[in-house]
């Protein structure tokens, strides 16, 4: 097992290095961040001085290695826009995003797992069709459109929920205040994830239900409830683990749009601002962070997979 984990980590390292290279190459293609500064009020000499100060006059591979060297010392560089250390910026925005993602993940699993299992057990019933159709709807509705529908309904028409932000302005926001602000962003993120996952879990459970060992269990006269709970669900754990693994990149991507629409003060909002400002060090930092999280997520999924399914060959 340790050997397997070590091996997986070793495979991940070149991928990680590759990610930083691709990432940096894309950034270099993007053109200079100084373009944003240019304007009638700034002289050319000032722009040049700034370029030298930022190290932008050096060839890109030098800049890359400088950046990588700093990275290894735990330094992600400084924002070109507001000179804050990128690491600190990420750290200060990470909390709200993790909160949003975590809650959405839990909600989507609480939605998808029972619905998927119900649908599989009652295959071809009316309930199954309803669940599957709804799941298609969930994965076909753009997050921002759902967000607008929710705002229209809950904020404009009913006035129940605040349309954006994390806390009510002027207050420092208690638990309840944050929870109320979270309802709509969580619904949007959870619905789009659950949409895909319901069908995934449904087909995985269907496959398990068709296995011979379940037929044997049923033939032994074990009741339907016991068959499903004792024999099927244990094996359905594996697809559920996979689903959680697949969620991670989706969550990262989804949270950018959701945070933008609901002005949720998290990483997504910060990223959007950085993208529009061409604030490369910040974009690099976020890309790196998310790629690492995705890689680690995949790694954990693979390991959990191996734990949940003893027949998976570790080689």
């Amino acid at each position, binding site marked *: 097992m340790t050997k397997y984990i070590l*091996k997986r980590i*070793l495979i991940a390292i070149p991928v990680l290095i590759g990610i930083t290279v691709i990432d940096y190459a894309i950034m270099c293609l993007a053109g200079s961040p100084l373009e944003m500064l240019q304007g009638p009020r700034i002289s050319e000499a000032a722009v040049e001085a700034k370029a030298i100060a930022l190290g932008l006059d050096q060839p890109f591979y030098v800049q890359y290695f400088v950046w990588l060297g700093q990275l290894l010392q735990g330094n992600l560089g400084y924002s070109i826009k507001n000179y804050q250390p990128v690491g600190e910026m990420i750290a200060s925005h990470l909390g709200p995003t993790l909160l949003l993602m975590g809650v959405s993940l839990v909600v989507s699993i609480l939605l998808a797992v029972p619905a998927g299992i119900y649908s599989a057990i009652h295959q071809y019933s009316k309930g199954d069709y309803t669940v599957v159709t709804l799941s298609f709807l969930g994965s076909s509705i753009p997050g921002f459109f759902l967000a607008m529908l929710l705002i229209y309904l809950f904020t404009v028409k009913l006035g129940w929920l605040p349309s954006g932000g994390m806390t009510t302005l002027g207050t420092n926001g208690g638990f309840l205040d944050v929870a109320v602000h979270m309802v709509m962003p969580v619904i949007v993120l959870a619905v789009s994830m659950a949409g895909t996952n319901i069908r995934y879990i449904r087909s995985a459970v269907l496959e398990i239900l068709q296995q011979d060992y379940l037929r044997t269990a049923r033939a032994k006269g074990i009741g339907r409830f016991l068959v499903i709970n004792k024999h099927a669900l244990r094996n359905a754990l594996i697809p559920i683990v996979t689903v959680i693994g697949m969620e991670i990149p989706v969550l990262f991507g989804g949270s950018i749009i959701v945070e933008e629409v609901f002005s949720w003060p998290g990483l997504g909002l910060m990223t959007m601002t950085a993208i529009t400002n061409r604030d490369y060090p910040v974009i690099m930092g976020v890309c790196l962070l998310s790629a690492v999280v995705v890689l680690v997520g995949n790694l954990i999924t693979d390991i959990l997979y191996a734990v949940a399914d003893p027949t998976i060959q570790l080689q």
Partner: protein
Amino acid sequence: MELMRVENLKKYYDIRGGIVTHTIGQVRAVDGVDFSIQEGEILGLVGESGCGKSTLGQLLAGLLVPTEGTVYYQGKELSLHPKKRAADGKLALKDVRTEIQMVFQDSYSSLNPRKHVYEILAQPMLYHKLATKDTIEKELKRLLELVGLPSAALSKYPHEFSGGQRQRIGIAKALSLKPKLIVCDEPVSALDVSIQAQILNLILELQKELGLTCLFIAHGLGAVRYVSDRVAVMYLGKIVELGAARELFFHPAHPYTKALTQAVPIPNPTKRPAEEMILQGEAASAVHPPKGCRFHTRCPYARPSCGKEEPGLLPLPHNKDHFVACPYAKQLSQE
């Protein structure tokens, strides 16, 4: 006349693994095999599953590149590496490509499910210019007639045929390139017993009619005895006995062959031998083959010396065409 001869042919598969992936072992699927196939004969090749007989077949058909060893085809050395050009006096695989064809075990997967029979058969023939657009129709009909199928079969898809019919198409495909040697890799083991006989008869007829040479691979002696002129018995990557089919079946010299012959069911219970020799256990691993004679771990006649020295494949003193890899074969055959 000798059509093909192989010398010290070996095929090892690497087992890869470890934290930093590297070769951690080798499966010795075929481990030093020498034999020859005479023109116009059917050479049977039998052995348990995993003994390397299919690997050997694929080596001869040019599907695998041998790890070591030499293959002579019509007296010339043949390079089995698909990309290498032939050196002086050597044949490249490309030069004899159409002359060695193969019939596969699973007739379903040996035909492309998305093509009808016409395409399956015509494409290689047209590519190798064995027929032209004008003559192909006639050629295909002749080919189907040869394997006993109606010409209406041309417009059908593989899934529309029964297992036996599909195997006939598989044989037709192999024949279509006018080969000299056909490697039949367990061509009947996936078929119903009643169909098996039909296909075996077809192979026999075709072999006589067209003067084909055949390597007939099977896991039991039953079918092999029926079609083969000579038989080679393989155990763990090595040939342990080679001789005329009749001779080998009635006077097996190697203890392993003996066990195999007794595994063929005999319908009449009174004719069954009093003392049945039933093999115990599984064949040893091809990753770590036993030292000395590979069979000694399961051989009821094993002596201490068997685990030390590896016996060579040598002719029996009273029959120079019967080869056995067991130093005690003579004594055993008289018991």
